């Protein structure tokens, strides 16, 4: 029996970094020199600032290119880089720099420069632990958005490996690990990604539950059926009331 998985949560302190950029050339120099924590702040961490959004806002680089620099073409290229080529800091940096190669030589107004920010993560134990893959899923689905983000987005991106997914694989729960990884990479805001994972997980559990139910005595099966119908009715009433 392996050790239970201990959940952590994360808070990001934010610090200014370097000099503000007033044109795309300076933005490119900043991106080339910035530590990974800066790219993380401007591209990846936005998901945690808007966990319940209907749709994720654009990353900070493309938002600046569109709004302050009025360069929609550069904004599109940057946006493509951050959404499609963001797997790790090195790939992202390279993609951002390539997107900026053909950017126009325009200059931002005074006060509208791009200020680079860096995150300083503070990870803290939540006190929540999971002994089985099922427990892990239930806990992760109901934990705060920062816990989901830390274990499924931040650790893989910044550290290059995901202890939570590795733990699941060690528990012979590779399908669940893949389901969680896919949900986290869906490009959806955190709450929507979690809902997606829950739906997929329940669907997968259905087959297992049916198989288990078939091994139960007739009386227990009937009782379970009655409870399920009662739950359905309650849910329908609740839905119509709201």
């Amino acid at each position, binding site marked *: 029996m392996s050790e239970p998985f201990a959940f952590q949560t994360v808070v990001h302190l934010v610090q200014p970094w370097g000099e503000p950029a007033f044109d795309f050339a300076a933005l490119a120099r900043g991106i080339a020199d910035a530590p990974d924590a800066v790219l993380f702040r401007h591209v990846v961490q936005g998901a945690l600032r808007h966990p319940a959004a209907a749709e994720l*806002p654009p990353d900070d680089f493309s938002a600046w290119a569109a709004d302050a620099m009025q360069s929609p073409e550069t904004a599109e290229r940057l946006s493509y880089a951050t959404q499609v080529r963001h797997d790790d800091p090195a790939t992202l940096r390279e993609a951002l720099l390539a997107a900026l190669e053909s950017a126009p030589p325009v200059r931002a107004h005074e006060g509208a420069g791009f200020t680079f920010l860096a995150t300083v993560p503070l990870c803290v134990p939540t006190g929540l632990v999971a002994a089985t893959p099922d427990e892990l899923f239930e806990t992760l689905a109901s934990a*705060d958005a920062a816990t989901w983000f830390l274990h499924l987005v931040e650790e893989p991106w910044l550290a290059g490996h995901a202890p939570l997914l590795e733990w699941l694989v060690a528990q012979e729960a590779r399908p669940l690990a893949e389901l969680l990884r896919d949900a986290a990479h869906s490009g959806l805001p955190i709450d929507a990604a979690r809902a997606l994972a829950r739906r997929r997980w329940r669907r997968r559990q259905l087959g297992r539950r049916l198989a288990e139910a078939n091994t139960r005595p007739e009386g227990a099966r009937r009782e379970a059926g009655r409870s399920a119908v009662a739950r359905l009715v309650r849910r329908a009433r609740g839905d119509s009331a709201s």
Partner: protein
Amino acid sequence: MSPAIFPERGLSLVEGYRTFVGDGPMRTLEAIAHRLRGHRMVMVNSTATGGGVAEILHRLVPLLEELGVPTSWEVMSGDPRFYAITKAIHNGLHGAPVTLSRDDLEYFEETNRLAARSLALDGDLVLIHDPQPVALAALRRDRGQRWVWRCHIDLSRARPAVLAPVVAHVRAYDAAIYSHVSFVPRLETPAFLAPPSIDPLSPKNEPLDDEAVDHQLAPFGLPRDLPLVTQVSRFDRLKDPTGVIDAFVMARRRERAHLVLAGGTADDDPEGAEVLAETHARAAHRDDVTILALPPDAHRTINALQRRSTVVVQKSLREGFALTVAEALWKRRAVVASAVGGIPLQVLHERTGLLVRSVEGCALQLGRLLRDPGLRRRLGAEGREHVRDNFLHTREARDYLALFAHLLAQQ
């Protein structure tokens, strides 16, 4: 210079905030507080009542206590001369042309020296708010303590002659916290960013039902059959109240609505009285504009006004952070605001509100919102979530605790 006394509370603050913020963020806050168990925090500012900092501390101190981080609040006091000097410093940091003599600066430091002897600053985490007590770190710092300076002021236009002596004292701190990146001065002391926050439990933001809103607004005779467009701001040229009237008049060519401009009476601000007069003059002969000069404690009236409004405007020409925007978003209002200062952090264009850069832009977006209830609902709903995640007191408490945990880990 005795410790401030808090009003009695019946409710658990942690549970009160949990109902608004949700369980996840509160558990994060509890987890960080748990990490700081065994440490004691001291907050220091220069007033127990009045002003935004005292308002925040009245909530944060008991909240941190409930979370298991023993926290005391020390109030530094001084005589009228000290307050005249700190007022001049405050104005100079905001960019006003003030003169500080060498005598003034010596008196400022002498008052800090007296405070350093009398205040109980023996916690291991000391958070000093704003410039008045800024000299305390150099005077009282003990080994093993962590000192952080929390600057609530917009320093982006600060007069160099006023900023320099303040910044010289900040060098004695382990870190400094600013509300916005544009407020950060050039300084070796590590700078961190923490936007200001609003309190969902305060009279300005607490839930009000329709009856309570009616009761609060009854004295003003506002029309009930027209959508209200409101700007809540002191009467200051940088808040552009006359620009709001111009934009409203342009939008009124196509839409029916009533404009309310509500702000402080500005008794102690001669320029405020001038701007109020200009605003009245611009709205002369218009029966679709109401100008309300409210007393400083009219929190529930402002709450009711924001809740009754169909659109809330913040058409500032220059802004520090503009928490009135967060207040409106928290109440699920549709917001049109200028893309200046800290406003774009709160108003994400087309997601939580609409950003504008001109009178014409403001008129266009006002008209658009007045015509489209679906858009108002969508922006309002997302705005509420955005404030819940980023601009409530619990997030500010979390940032302070996280910074101290970070500084302690660096030992």
